[in-house]
């Protein structure tokens, strides 16, 4: 049983002025030089604090402005105007939207949950995870009060093979030795980055953060280097199935992961016979075959299956309508339940997990835990410009990152995600994240609500 789990955030201000949402335009030529200038009266002192960063060509006012329009509306000559900062809109891509990046930066800086007033501002629903809502409890059963540790809500999961049941002897002791389990206090594993892994500081930041939060991090043979030695118990080598069992990167690790291949069970057998106390996971691409593959692997005794989608959360399938990770995952989970073997295997999912809410949603859809990648990079101030993919310079100079600082940013992000996971679980009234797994009864799906409500009223199929 872990001690009451706690992640401690420490503010870590950005190294570079972040790209802001606002764009203020100031026609100083017309200024009357009033004695009580609206700029001086800015509630947030953005004019006082504004600074121009020649290196990034960004004015900090765009980041600091809170869009209250007070200066705009009160300047006697109307010399101030504002609109959206185009640089902001250009960040990221269709999945990793500017708001996601902004939201992640805030959390990485402060470790706090993003909070705002005046209601929800977004679209009614959306694709992917935005097409589901989580449930809450009221009156018929209580919510649980986990925030700030007021009431203990466990976010720990066991990774490994689970028993259907245990055979006890007459004295009440278990008849056989239990299979090994790796317990992590937060259902998150750090995945290899799809890009942006420039220099050792990013890797070191991740490894140090993994250690601070008591978590795990995948490492590939390409990124493994002796500097990771102090972090072995955090590492999950993601290796080719035929790797030499004596390779240095396998020493002292609690878990390894193999890429799926048709003869994989034999390779698992080889690794387990070398070290039976090490959990072996298989990385399987999410596609329409994933459910039968996962079922077969589970029957074959595999302990963990890691189902991965692409970094936008789409399954790997030819054609133009891939399922989103939530749907593909539910399919696998439901299949395993129908096959009566779901509880025996641990499912890790990755791909498209971008915001804190995606974590519980993925778990509701059937994952025991999730692996995340890009949010970690964004925590390190990445703007998802992908310049590094083509070998161009990084606008936030990730190669020069101080690993201690980087680790703190990631820890802050995880702290915020942890708090948000607890918020959602608390609202559901569930005190153990393992009980959220597959709990689709406590989620609402857009298609269902739409069909049951407007479908019932307006009839027919929606257009």
């Amino acid at each position: 049983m872990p001690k009451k789990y706690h992640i401690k955030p420490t503010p870590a201000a950005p190294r570079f002025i972040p790209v802001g949402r606002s764009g203020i335009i100031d026609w100083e030529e017309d200024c009357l030089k009033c004695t009580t200038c609206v700029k001086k009266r800015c509630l947030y002192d953005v004019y006082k604090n504004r600074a121009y960063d020649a290196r990034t060509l960004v004015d900090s006012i765009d980041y600091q402005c809170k869009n209250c329009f007070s200066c705009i509306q009160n300047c006697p000559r109307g010399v101030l105007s504002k609109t959206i900062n185009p640089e902001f809109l250009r960040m990221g891509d269709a999945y990793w939207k500017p708001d996601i990046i902004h939201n992640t930066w805030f959390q990485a800086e402060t470790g706090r949950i993003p909070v705002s007033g005046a209601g929800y501002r977004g679209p009614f629903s959306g694709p992917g995870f935005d097409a589901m809502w989580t449930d809450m409890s009221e009156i018929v059963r209580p919510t649980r009060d986990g925030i700030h540790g007021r009431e203990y809500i466990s976010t720990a999961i066991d990774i490994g093979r689970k028993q259907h049941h245990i055979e006890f002897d007459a004295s009440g002791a278990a008849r056989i030795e239990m299979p090994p389990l790796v317990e992590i206090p937060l259902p998150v594993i750090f995945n290899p980055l799809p890009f942006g892994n420039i220099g050792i500081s990013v890797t070191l930041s991740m490894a140090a953060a993994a250690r601070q939060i008591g978590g795990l991090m995948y490492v590939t043979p390409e990124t493994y280097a002796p500097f990771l030695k102090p972090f072995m118990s955090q590492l999950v080598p993601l290796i080719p199935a035929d790797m030499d069992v004596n390779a240095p990167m396998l020493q002292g690790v609690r878990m390894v992961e193999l890429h799926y291949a048709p003869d994989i069970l034999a390779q698992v057998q080889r690794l387990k016979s070398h070290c039976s106390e090490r959990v072996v996971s298989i990385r399987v691409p999410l596609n329409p075959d994933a459910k039968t593959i996962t079922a077969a692997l589970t029957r074959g005794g595999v302990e963990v299956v890691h189902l991965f989608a692409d970094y936008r959360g789409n399954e790997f399938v030819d054609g133009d309508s891939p399922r989103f990770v939530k749907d593909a995952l539910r399919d696998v989970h439901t299949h395993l339940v129908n096959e009566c073997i779901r509880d025996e295997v641990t499912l890790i999912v990755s791909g498209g997990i971008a915001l804190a809410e995606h974590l519980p949603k993925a778990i509701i859809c059937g994952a025991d835990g999730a692996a995340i990648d890009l949010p970690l990079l964004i925590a390190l101030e990445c703007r998802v410009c992908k310049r590094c993919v083509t070998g161009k310079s990084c606008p936030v100079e990730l190669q020069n990152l101080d690993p201690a600082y980087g680790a703190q940013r990631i820890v802050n992000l995880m702290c915020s995600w942890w708090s948000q996971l607890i918020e959602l679980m608390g609202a559901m009234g569930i005190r153990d994240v393992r009980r959220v797994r597959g709990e689709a009864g406590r989620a609402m799906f857009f298609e269902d609500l739409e069909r049951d409500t407007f479908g019932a009223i307006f009839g027919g199929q929606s257009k």
Partner: protein
Amino acid sequence: MTAEIKKTASRFRHTIGKYRVVRGRQCKSCAGCVVTCPHGVHFKAGARMGTPRDYLCVGPDICKQHGTYCVEKCPNAALSVAINPQIKALGDFRWTAELLMSTWYQAETGELPTVDMEYRVGNSGGGFDKLRLKYPETLPSEIAADDIDTSIELNKREDNAHRITISLPLYQGGMSFGSVSDNTMISRAKAAMLWNTFGCTGEGGYPEFLYPFDRHMITQVATGLFGVKEETVQRVRIVEFKYAQGAKPGLGGHLLGDKVTERVAKMREAVRGSALFSPFPFHSVYSVEDHKKHVDWIKAMNPKALVSVKVSTPADVDMVAIGSYYAGAHIVHLDGSYGGTGAAPDIAKKNIAMPIEYAIPKVHRFLVEEGVRDRVTLIASGGIRTAHDILKAIALGADGVVEGTAGMVALECTRCSSCESGRGCPRGIATTDPELAEMMTVEWGAQRVYNLYASWRKQIVAELRKLGMRSIRELVGRTDCLRHLDYN
């Protein structure tokens, strides 16, 4: 203040409008544009021309048609007009810039905007924004506007509690002492009283300055039980249990230590500077039989009070509603997940519980099937922005609605959403900073809210006439008066 519409201009020098009108240096102050423009955009300030009131500008298209296009008529080519780029930075999916501006306009004038602006729906891509009113194919017989009844009854149980009829199908959502300025609270309460409806204390206690409005106040009993005393419960005609709120369904909240000023602390009977917490649930209510006991408790303190149960919208919201009815509630108030005025975690606002558009018909249908729909008042909130949202909510099955954010917008909230960063609300609404709170007078605030309600009522009356209904009560559950853009 009397109950009538009065023009109540913005407190700010420049109102943001859809169009931007610029007067160039070429202007010779001939004032020809003052004559040309029928909308009052141009005016003379002393010897010179004033900065154009461009929020009144209806745009080139309309003016060109009517031959009142100042740009063309200016002898010195000093004027130019274009869409205001600022509005890109204003608003969001739910409250678009046009919706904000049209609401400001209604609060200022009590009328619909003359400018071609959307005042009915936002741009969220679902729910109310995809619903439209559907009128009968044959024109209904003419009903005089005066014959149309917009009042609703709040006690349908026919028990010993008060009978209360409110003149509009809406009352106000709770905003706590300490979260908004005194003037904001009084302004809203006053507008509620003038319209013969109700304001709400929120959960932060019952400040003395609201005592004059007792007959038109709802007092809230929330999970923190702050400021809740027998005396406050006995003071009012309606007591509202806040089980959850749409902005953060299932979550509690806390008031940071440095926000607990001397006054806030006194009201909540706490100590200045120590953080205050509301638990997630009512810890005295873990089940539906506890809930009944809880309602009985209010009735034990104030037997004549109407009990409203404010709940959020979980998957089993229908069960929650029927449970509340059987527990003895007079009003079931559903607060959908997209509303709320208070600070709340973004993750909660976006993800927890269902939007109100789904909850209303679900609950309405269930109450009808149970045969108790006419014994309970169903109130909806959480994303009611416009008069049309009210009509749609009622057609989906509610009796009336609760308004929160729209009233804030009437007070010139821009929904910048940083209600309490730094010193507080930059618009002087949601703040306890004395200097910021001074930005607004009660007279001004009450009139703005009054005007908005007046405009809403006119729209409701107009739409009911088109629907051929004499009373808003006829519209309840009439989903046949709606169409959905996604369905044939």
